[in-house]
């Protein structure tokens, strides 16, 4: 494999890893607060449809982004009501919302546009277009690093850079602020927060809402940056891969970046079976590359690659003990 091909692969990695990263960070907030969320997929899908629809109708991608966040938030609030207010089973709620999203997105898109559940193709300001970073052109010819900067780092949409920026922000919020301390505490032992006079429900709702916002951005990226419009089931299991990445990262932000980029790399490879064949020396079925993130996650879960200990209060609705 030559350097140019590698750069292409890395460029795809970043492009494909971004929605995973956004969704993974989204899940991190919720799960760190003790609310399991296997509904990342559904929220992304809802967001993607909202973004595609509104961007198509208004021609403004920014309005599309807002709509995406709003659409995702509705589902986040539903999940919060079911699992926090009514102490329902968080896993079942997540499963339910995924189905709901899968169906309702097609229904809405079909009702609005009548194009078989798709939104119309987006162009121009209806999409987040690539940004060429400063000096990218000028530095292009610097050996090794120049092309890396030009090909891989520069030339993505604003949401890619936003996603990358969310990583240190999340780290800082989690470990350096009062909110982060309380958020982590409520996921480990909600009674500690409750007896300290802080609202468990309030904190958990806040976390679930942040999850909604980030899933909203992830969905918007899918429909307005990665692709030009919404299509049915367009998230194609990315919510679950993000969940896998979250476990792989053991619920930590920097590791989430690593895990999602690794899984993004697998996806990039799956698009280039020719490269894999050239490197490995024989034909590798694409399906095997597709399965890699899941297999890795199972290995992590099984404790073969370090031990993944989820937040201790994860999945349990908080009831004051008697």
């Amino acid at each position: 494999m030559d350097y140019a091909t590698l750069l292409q692969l890395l460029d795809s990695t970043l492009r494909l890893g971004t929605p995973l990263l956004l969704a993974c960070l989204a899940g991190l907030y919720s799960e760190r607060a003790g609310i399991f969320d296997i509904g990342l997929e559904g929220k992304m899908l809802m967001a993607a449809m909202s973004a595609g629809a509104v961007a198509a109708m208004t021609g403004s991608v920014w309005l599309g982004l807002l709509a995406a966040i709003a659409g995702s938030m509705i589902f986040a609030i539903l999940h919060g009501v079911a699992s926090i207010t009514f102490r329902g089973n968080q896993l079942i709620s997540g499963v339910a919302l995924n189905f709901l999203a899968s169906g309702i997105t097609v229904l809405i898109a079909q009702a609005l546009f009548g194009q078989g559940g798709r939104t119309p193709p987006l162009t121009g300001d209806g999409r987040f277009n690539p940004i060429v970073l400063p000096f990218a052109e000028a530095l292009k010819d610097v050996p090794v690093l120049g092309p890396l900067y030009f090909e891989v780092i520069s030339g993505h949409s604003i949401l890619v850079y936003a996603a990358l920026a969310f990583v240190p922000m999340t780290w800082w919020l989690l470990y350096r602020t009062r909110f982060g301390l309380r958020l982590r505490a409520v996921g480990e032992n909600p009674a500690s927060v409750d007896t300290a006079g802080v609202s468990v429900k309030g904190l958990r709702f806040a976390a679930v809402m942040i999850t909604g916002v980030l899933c909203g951005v992830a969905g918007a990226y899918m429909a307005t940056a990665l692709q030009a419009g919404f299509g049915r089931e367009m998230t194609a299991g990315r919510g679950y891969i993000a969940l896998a990445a979250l476990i792989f990262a053991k619920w930590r932000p920097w590791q989430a970046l690593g895990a999602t980029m690794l899984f993004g790399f697998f996806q990039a490879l799956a698009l280039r079976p020719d490269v894999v064949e050239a490197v490995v020396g024989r034909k590798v079925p694409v399906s095997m590359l597709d399965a890699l993130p899941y297999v890795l996650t199972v290995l992590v879960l099984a404790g073969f690659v370090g031990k993944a200990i989820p937040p201790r209060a994860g999945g349990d609705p908080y009831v004051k003990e008697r």
Partner: protein
Amino acid sequence: MDRIPRWADLALVPLVSLGLAALISALVILAIGQDPMEALNVMVTGAVGSAYGWGYTLYYTTSFIFTGLAVTIAFHAGLFNIGGEGQAQLGGLGVALACLFLPWPHWSLALIGASVAAAVFGAAWAAIPAYLQAKRGSHIVITTIMFNYIAASLMVFMLVDVLRPEGQMDPATANFPEATHLPTLNQIPGFNLIFTKDVPANVTFLIALAAAWVVWAILWRTRLGYQIRAFGKPGAAAHYAGINGFRITMIAMLLSGGLAGMMAINNVMGEAERLLQNSASGAGFIGIAVALMGRNHPVGVVLAAVLFGFLFQGGAELGLWTKIPIELRTVVQGLVILFTGALDYMVRMMLARVFALFRAPAEAKGAA
């Protein structure tokens, strides 16, 4: 805590949940500019208005009984098996291998052989998450989700790279030999008086009903069932009683995976008569809704499976005859899971309030 009578808990809670799901679905239909009454009409006519419609409804019902029972039996062991979809696909692989590579003289023998293969393959796919849960503490919900995706990839690999006949374009196996074709209901004496046209519902329906009885008998009439239910309850009483948690986890998941796998004799052997990609087409997930709606009891599961069979066939009819997309059924499915599974406490609370309203005047009268 307000209490509600047992009959209400068993019957009313699922019915109210269903009512809420139906109400919201009707609102959704209205919101997309269609007529809910017309939709209901189309669904009823298409799914249960004729023997032909029933022939499709029961076909779906058969699959959902298997996957619903799969979720149910795991649930009683305290395990949430979301992996029914992958296990059903693997079951399909088992069926395909049995039908394609073994010479069967008669469909009845093929049915037995394929059932065993389906159950074994489905169980094997459930065995790994079960083992990881029992021995290494990996959360079975997450591992079974992962195994669904791994199964999907594996099936693509098998169908594209291994089982696809030379020269065929679509990723599928060859057609199964004639001798493995199962009799559909219109070919079974007795049933053929009702079903006069060719329908997909087949002899597997009877096997599904038998499976429901077997699951009931296992859970409530055998030592194994006692141990499964004891193990599935909160606390460590099963450990105290000397019930082997590893063994029960494995057995419950093997049974669960086996049941999910056996769904394949309905759709792969009984209907498609070859193995296609994504053969389970969501039935594994619908099993979750069916089990929740059916209150994790085989009788409830059969009833809920009929309901979802109706929904599935009716939903398909909607897609054909109205402007309502077929995805409406996914919406209803999500709503049913939401209300019966996650908002179950809300529904109970609502009912408790209503019962309190009726009780309060009675008590006031008693006091006076």
